[in-house]
């Protein structure tokens, strides 16, 4: 073939092939004649789970003629698009750190600060508010259930599943406890020097700012609030040994546990015990800050004057004597006790210096006192004066806890195999290496205990229903809901270690509350 013929035939192939290829590609992308949906997700958050799940949804909907275009984005771009409501459908998750349906339902309230779906329905608002400000549990239950059924009917979110937290425990660590809201309790572990890991970067060690799971994991070892959540997801006393809620639900009275010392000393003074004044100062510190949890004091009497700097203290937070503490609310808020679980409601000494560097130590009352933090590893020493030693377990004296940040799952597994980690929080990427197809422990790991904890989270697809949004109409949302096979997701992705979700309120966790 001479050069001229070659060039002519190349040009002919290009002239026919390129447009043809374009048409084929375009048809493939848009699915000519069929419904299409763009599914946006944050490819940097739980990337293994998100990408597998997105592909599975794509495959399931394709069977019904719905073409799904996947749109994986970086964290920054994802948050930007979500914030501006520039998406059709978003694959995301919601997790709470307290045990109240209110936390799941707040997103649909038309006046909420952050509204993922941009949903606006006066009937919903009415039902939600009737639950939020109810004076008794029965009214709250009715309100929240009605609110949940409204959003479920409107298919604002497409709930998929709630997954489990899986741990591989070495002998001697069986006393480890955690709950549906990922509070990790190492007090009952008999192994004196414990090493564990987290796969998320730690943002801060300042309790009032701790918002991500890793920061909370570290902070809650050293700091405590008035109440805590046990492994059965029930509120239990912490620094308050008892509390009472007034009949109108507007006054919460706490009796502070006596003789609980803060870690170490302050300005060379001898160890000091927690008083009601410390609680008041700690709460005001959070309320005055740009803490992500500043909202928990939104309904306390006098908060507006305090935030506007017209008052130097919050009148609704009252220290009565040394050990009695009162919270007065402007309206009944049944979730208030649950909100006090946040690390931002931890109690610290009222005379803690304003510029205290939380990376250098801790001034809380928790079971472990921070000794060292180098950006990737936190070393804690057992608090030998800890008030809450568990019955039958060894005292906190002569114990240590090390929490390292290890982001790569294979490195975590290697460290566990080498004995450098005592507890492995099994990421999805390691399910294949540790679990068999039915979700049980493989024989090679039989010396270890598999601990399964049902999480109170929700993985779902959120549809954009904002007025300017481009989300699918209700008919398509319902069609998608009917086609999605949640059991396949649970079985194929999680080897059964997750629970199908059909409502925006994960039923198994909240069944006890509602």
């Amino acid at each position, binding site marked *: 073939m001479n050069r001229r013929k070659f060039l002519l035939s190349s040009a002919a192939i290009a002239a026919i092939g390129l447009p043809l290829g374009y048409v084929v590609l375009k048809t493939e992308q848009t699915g000519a004649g069929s419904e299409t949906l763009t599914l946006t997700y944050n490819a*940097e958050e739980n990337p293994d789970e998100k990408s597998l799940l997105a592909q599975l949804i794509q495959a399931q909907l394709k069977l019904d003629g719905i073409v799904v275009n996947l749109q994986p984005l970086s*964290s*920054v*771009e994802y*948050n*930007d*698009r979500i*914030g501006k409501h520039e998406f059709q459908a978003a694959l995301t998750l919601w997790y709470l750190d307290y045990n109240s349906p209110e936390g799941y339902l*707040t*997103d649909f309230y038309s006046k909420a*600060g*952050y509204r*993922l779906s941009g949903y606006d329905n006066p009937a919903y608002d009415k039902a939600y508010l009737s639950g939020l400000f109810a004076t008794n549990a029965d009214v709250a239950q009715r309100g929240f259930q009605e609110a949940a059924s409204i959003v479920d009917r409107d298919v604002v979110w497409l709930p998929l599943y709630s997954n489990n937290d899986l741990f591989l425990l070495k002998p001697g660590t069986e006393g480890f406890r955690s709950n549906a809201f990922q509070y990790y309790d190492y007090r009952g572990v008999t192994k004196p020097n414990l*090493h564990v*890991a987290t796969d998320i*970067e730690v*943002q*801060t060690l*300042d309790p009032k*700012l701790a*918002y991500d799971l890793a920061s909370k994991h570290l902070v809650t070892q050293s700091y405590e609030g008035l109440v805590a959540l046990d492994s059965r997801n029930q509120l239990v006393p912490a620094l308050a040994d008892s509390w009472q809620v007034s009949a109108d639900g507007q006054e919460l009275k706490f009796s502070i546990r006596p003789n609980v010392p803060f870690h170490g000393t302050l300005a060379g003074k001898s160890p000091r015990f927690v008083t009601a004044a410390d609680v008041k100062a700690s709460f005001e510190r959070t309320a005055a800050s*740009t*803490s*992500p*949890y*500043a*909202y928990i004091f*939104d309904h306390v009497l006098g908060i507006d004057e305090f*935030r506007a700097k017209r008052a130097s203290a919050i009148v609704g937070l009252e220290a009565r004597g040394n050990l009695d503490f009162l919270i007065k609310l402007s309206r009944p808020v049944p979730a208030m006790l649950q909100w006090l679980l946040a690390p931002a409601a931890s109690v610290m000494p009222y005379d803690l210096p304003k510029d205290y*560097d939380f*990376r250098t130590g801790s001034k809380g009352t928790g079971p472990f006192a921070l000794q060292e933090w*180098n*950006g*990737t*590893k936190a070393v804690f020493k057992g608090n030998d004066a800890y008030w809450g030693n568990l019955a039958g377990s060894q005292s906190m004296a002569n114990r240590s806890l090390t929490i*390292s*940040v*290890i*982001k*790569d799952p*294979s*490195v975590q597994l*290697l*460290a566990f*195999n*080498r004995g*450098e*980690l005592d507890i492995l929080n099994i990421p999805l990427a390691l399910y294949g290496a540790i679990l068999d197809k039915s979700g049980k422990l493989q024989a090679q790991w039989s010396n270890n205990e598999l601990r399964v904890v049902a999480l109170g989270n929700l993985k779902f697809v959120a549809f954009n229903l904002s007025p300017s949004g481009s989300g699918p109409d209700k008919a398509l949302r319902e069609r998608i809901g009917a086609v999605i096979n949640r059991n396949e997701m649970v079985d194929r992705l999680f080897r059964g270690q997750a629970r199908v979700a059909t409502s925006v309120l994960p039923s198994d966790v909240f069944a006890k509350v509602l």
Partner: protein
Amino acid sequence: MTEWLHKSLRLVIGIWAVVTISFMCTYMLPGDPARIILGPQASAETLASFRSEYRLDQSLSAQYVSYASKVAKLDLGESFTQRQPVTRLLLARGITTFTLAISAICIAIGLGMFLPLLMAMAGSDRLSTTFGLILQGFAFPPPYLLAVAALGFVAGFLKIAPVMFDPNSSVSWLAAAIVLSAYPSALLFRLFIQCLSREMSQPYAQRAVASGFSRQHVLWHEVFRNACAEPLASATNALAFFFTSAFFVETVFGIGGLGRLAQEAIRQKDVATLNGVCLALCALVTITSLVMDAVHRVFFGKSKATAR
């Protein structure tokens, strides 16, 4: 003196350019830092208060002027996420990355320059070709994969280092530094072999051999210094590679350095920290480059003329 004045001026202009470019780039990153950092439940008042505290509610020009004037006073502001002075974070993390990068540079010089010299002195072309291929094999995979494989080999198979990085363990540092130096070592090795060969064919080296000096003597006393000049100049240009690739190595090995700090700052749109990391890297590269320039001048400035 004038040359140093020019260099200092270039340095100032360079730093100003980095300050401006990094500020503009981070400003243009999508997303609202207040919402990303404070989360979905933060109220409008808290968000407004956060934006006001970090001047995010001001115009671009006002933010730039405020930032640039702070930088001029060596104040890099406060990290949005960690609420700590950025300089404090950079000092704590920068030392680790600097140590890692300098260790890797030393290893790269050892593997890429001294090893080929020894092989040339031994007169084994086959050995140097084989070793060059092995080095290139290590340089081929992306740094992240190489880091995972190296950690698995050192900590899982040989069991001579802990899996979780121990700053007190020299083997931990060595393993991380070797991974970081793999790619530059391979490049340096190839370049240095070529330079040695070129210098050996120069008249001054040929004359020395003809005068009865041994090949080893000529290589060590005459050729080595001249052959070093070009690879070292290239190494100066490749300095940024060491610092940026340290990001991957830090993630796998669990080293708390600037790389991980930068990654998180990008994820959270922590503009203050991100700008601080850019400036710190710029400063590290500039200072190391100046030191290497000085070394180059002292040791190699007139070497060829003297040798000839």
